[in-house]
């Protein structure tokens, strides 16, 4: 491979796959409880409705 092509390959991989890695880390590091206080309509589990 030519040097230019190698450089572009490495940069592409770093940006795209690196972006994926960073976004995963960002997600894993987020607090579990973002959002307003108080239960949302679907927490805790509600009983099933019958037809």
């Amino acid at each position, binding site marked *: 491979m030519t040097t*230019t092509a190698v450089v572009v390959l490495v940069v592409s991989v770093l940006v795209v796959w690196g*972006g994926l890695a960073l976004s995963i880390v960002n997600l894993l590091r*987020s607090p579990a409880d*973002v*959002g307003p206080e108080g239960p*949302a309509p679907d927490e805790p589990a509600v009983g099933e*409705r019958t037809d």
Partner: protein
Amino acid sequence: MAARAGAGPATREQWSGQTGFILAAVGSAVGLGNIWRFPGVAYENGGGAFLVPYLVALLAVGLPVLLLDYALGHRFRGSPPSVFRRLSTRAESLGWFQVGISFVIILYYTVIIAWAVSFVWFSVDTAWGDDPAGFFTGEYLQVSETPGLSLDIVPGVLLPLVAVWVVVLVVLALGVQRGLERANVVFLPLLVVLFVTLVVRALFLEGAGEGLTAFFTPDWSALADPGVWIAAFAQIFFSLSIAFGIMITYSSYLKRRSNLTSTGLVVGFANSSFELLAGIGVFATLGFMAHQEGVQVGELEGLTGPVLSFVTFPHIISMMPGGPVFGVLFFSALALAGITSLLSLLQVVSSAFQEKFGWTPRQGALRVGGVAAVLSVVLFSTTTGLPLLDTVDTFANEVGIIGSAVVMTILVGVVLRRLPELQWHLNAVSSTRIGAWWRWMVGIGVPVVLGYMLLTGVWTLVRDGYGGNPQWFVNAFGWGTVGVIVVFALVMSFVRWRHDPDELVPWPELPASQLRHGGQKGPRS
């Protein structure tokens, strides 16, 4: 879980967690186009330099529209017809338009997967012999001379097609958690493993370096060519499964407290990561072919689409040591990528009907799937299937999907002015916050770019027809398809709902400062 799906927040199906959702969303996004569209498009549009417009497109169009889909589905908790109706009663037909597009795509997508399954078997003994092109259109598909609509079903296509339908309908009938999610949890990692194996193998082929050089060498002058930028926006747009109902539906199964923007970033980058991997693998393999034939990579043809997969790659497999193994892996990967995308399309249609008519997932799967299965056999497994597929696909994408995106962004942004509410919703539940730039991109930037693509695409189709097919054929099956979807959308919006969709209370509740007519700035944007 016996509860029926989607009538209200108490009974709506849910992903078992964030991971399930991400795997399903990535499974939906990663499909045939990641493998056979991206590499060729990148190569033809500047090679390594394409990375620049591609990333700009991902950040400026792809992710913003993905987040729009997420916000709509997550806040209004339904498939597109439910969601758009909750925004504005008369907007329901846009939702059905998206459902219609998905349905049409399902009809031929299943057939392509059937081809991939067939070729897994063909790879074992390189059944295509010396003439893969002739084998594909002749012996295998038995394509007829004149385009039209024949009822001569091709048994070699019918059998794998039936198998594909059985598998996807079973998955669909099992519902979101037990069917859809589980299928993606198994298939997506398997797809990644298969594909990484292929790419590593390809990198050790002789000539791989030349292929990669051809792919990654940048032609910086391409950046001055608007066509290249349009190609980048088109690629991202089609690749991410956005703007025609899938991501709306998928995000509606997330629980209310879910981190939307952070997962959106993961899904967007995961989709691009797979495409890049595919680009590396495809061009390493093409480099090998060029080396074997003593030509330059630039002289090769058949670098994209079904031709790449079903003609060029078989040709290469015949030349390669260990070709049959490579072939089995490659076509299996193609089938898996296709199936996970197909499931998402089916879920859109099935859930729309479940919500409108109060059906269970099983009823949705059997009724919608049953009709679709029959139509796909009759229309696309015959000797006239290939040109029909090609035409319908082009119109579904270039008129249907892009049209849907333009209408959706203009409707939600300019007409109904709901972007501030949706931005607020995204920020209320997510840790990664988005600023006002998102509203500008979705409300103005995206409609302008996609509107331009729509107009030029339609103009070209009107002026040049398509694929060298006779004009009556293009009118009937190209424009006709679009017309049928429009009529379907309008008719469905007049049919009565089994349960009132307007009972939904969106959560989190908008603070008074965010009320539409107040028009004030929300939380720090």
